[in-house]
């Protein structure tokens, strides 16, 4: 499913956080948002998944007007993996993932065998099948993040939003999470902080600074020494990694 955001502007407490940003994600594309902390990536994503109301702009998921549709309607098609996933009450991993079925259930409907299969499958995809009965709060950060991803997968979304899904994770889980997401073959819009990782996994990148899109396009076309200095205020050398052939960045 494709997603388009048109001329989104968001002002929070008198500050313009997002200034007239438009972007689009084609069917099956993996699109990344990069930019320094506080550039408005998260706020932009939150307005797309309806947590923050933008002052101006439109968001379409396929034919649906996201901002005017009910949360329930959107949640049937759009999954979100957010940044903060702490709880004050404990659930088992299985229960956490089963909650991904919520959008597809009536209030009185109980979980069917099909739901159990979907949940088992989602757990398998993130390699947590053996963890089904573990308590969520005893898991490590990386495991928690994978549970949340499994929940989003169990939601069977046609579009996925990720807000820095690999934050605080060690490299193994960073790669694992992004590979699992990539393998879903659905439209993805992700805020990422690791530039080389973003350049490997993303088809298209949007570079954001102070609430504005500075550049957008294929990673290889837009990630230059000049742009990175402009965005992050650092000196670096972008080169082709001789081993993988991917783009790599050396910070100077």
């Amino acid at each position: 499913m494709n997603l388009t955001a048109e001329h989104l502007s968001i002002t929070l407490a008198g500050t313009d956080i997002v200034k007239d940003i438009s972007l689009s994600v084609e069917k099956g594309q993996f699109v990344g948002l990069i930019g320094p902390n506080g550039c408005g990536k998260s706020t932009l994503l939150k307005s797309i998944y309806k947590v923050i109301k933008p002052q101006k702009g439109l968001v379409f998921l396929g034919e649906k007007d996201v901002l005017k549709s009910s949360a329930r309607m959107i949640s049937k098609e759009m999954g979100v993996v957010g940044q903060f996933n702490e709880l004050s009450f404990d659930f088992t991993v299985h229960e956490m993932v089963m909650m991904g079925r919520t959008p597809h259930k009536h209030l009185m409907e109980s979980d069917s065998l099909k739901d159990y299969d979907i949940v088992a499958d989602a757990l398998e995809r993130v390699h947590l099948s053996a963890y089904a009965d573990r308590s969520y709060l005893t898991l490590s950060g990386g495991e928690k993040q994978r549970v949340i991803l499994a929940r989003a997968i169990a939601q069977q979304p046609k579009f996925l939003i990720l807000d820095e899904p690999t934050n605080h994770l060690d490299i193994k889980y960073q790669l694992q999470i992004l590979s699992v997401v990539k393998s879903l073959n659905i439209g993805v819009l992700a805020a990422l902080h690791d530039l080389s990782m973003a350049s490997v996994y993303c088809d298209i990148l949007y570079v954001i600074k102070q609430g504005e899109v500075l550049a957008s396009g294929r990673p290889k076309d837009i990630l230059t020494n000049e742009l990175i200095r402009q965005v992050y205020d650092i000196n670096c050398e972008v080169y082709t990694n001789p081993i993988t052939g991917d783009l790599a960045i050396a910070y100077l």
Partner: protein
Amino acid sequence: MAIARAQRKLTNNSLDTGSRIQNRSLFSVIVVSLLAAVGVSIIVSVSIGQVSIPFGQSFWILVEQITGLQTGRIPADANDMFLDVIWQIRFPRVLLAMITGAGLALCGTVMQASVQNPLADPFILGISSGASLGATFSILIGFGIGGFIGELGVAAWAFIGALAAAILVLGLASIGGKTSSVKLILAGTVINALCGAFSNFIVFFAKNVEGIRSISFWTMGSLAAAEWGTLPLITAVVLTATLFFLFQFRVMNTMLLGEETALTLGINLNHYRRLYMVISSIVTGVLVCTCGIIGFVGLIVPHMVRSVVGSNHKRLVPVAILFGSLFMIWTDVFARTVITHGELPIGIVTSLLGAPVFMYMLIKKSYGFGGK
């Protein structure tokens, strides 16, 4: 290789589903045993008291009274007084205990979910102090005024106070947009303090010793008011709320995940949170105006049950309701039998029993109240 993977997946899935089904039957076992325990407890508790009645006779008296049949099982030389003691005094009281326990446990569960805080209880919205203020006002001032205000009983005033406090807390917490759980807890604390101060103010200037005594008795809670006449209203209210919340398990589960996550799962918490609080405050208000303030039950029963069946409200709500009933039946038996010639206020008993249990759970490692 693909086949091996598919096979592994198949066994994994069926294994998984298998253990889930086992889990489900464990849940049924818990529910059935609790139901049986409640049934047995009713028989035992109507037999215990100043006058001891053989369990068998209690059972058949209840059966005959409820079904209207003549079973002929009650011995001919049975004491006629037994019938009155059971049917007019003890049975209504046990029923009231059951309903109160169920209602408090339900409201505690709902409140803990609504404010996402393990320390929430049915009185968090200032309901207890509001009700106390209403009762204090009625006992020490209200009756002197006469007319319409004087006509209303203590219970009605307590109810008015409870609801007024809840409305104030909800209003205060939603000033400036969204109602967050922190704002609710703070608003509840403020209103509690304020109502407490007003109550003390009235008590301080009152010359009415008898009145002050009855207030302190009232704030300690008691099921002594139980009679058939008080039961229908309270039963209807608690039963309706129970039926409603039994089917809200999905919403209550996502509530624990927080505002934002719930929204991405299609559920707008703001709306549900307000609805739940209004319903809980009505239920708690009705309970308080009948039995006074019975603390700790609504706080501790959900935690005890959670440590056995987990946080999933599909299981938590029904088990908490049943366990709340059971807990209350036995605390009341204790309250009315522990001292000869009289009874302890049940609020004292629930706190005396509840606090150590709570401490134990705090010390015990396997249940962390959400912390690690």
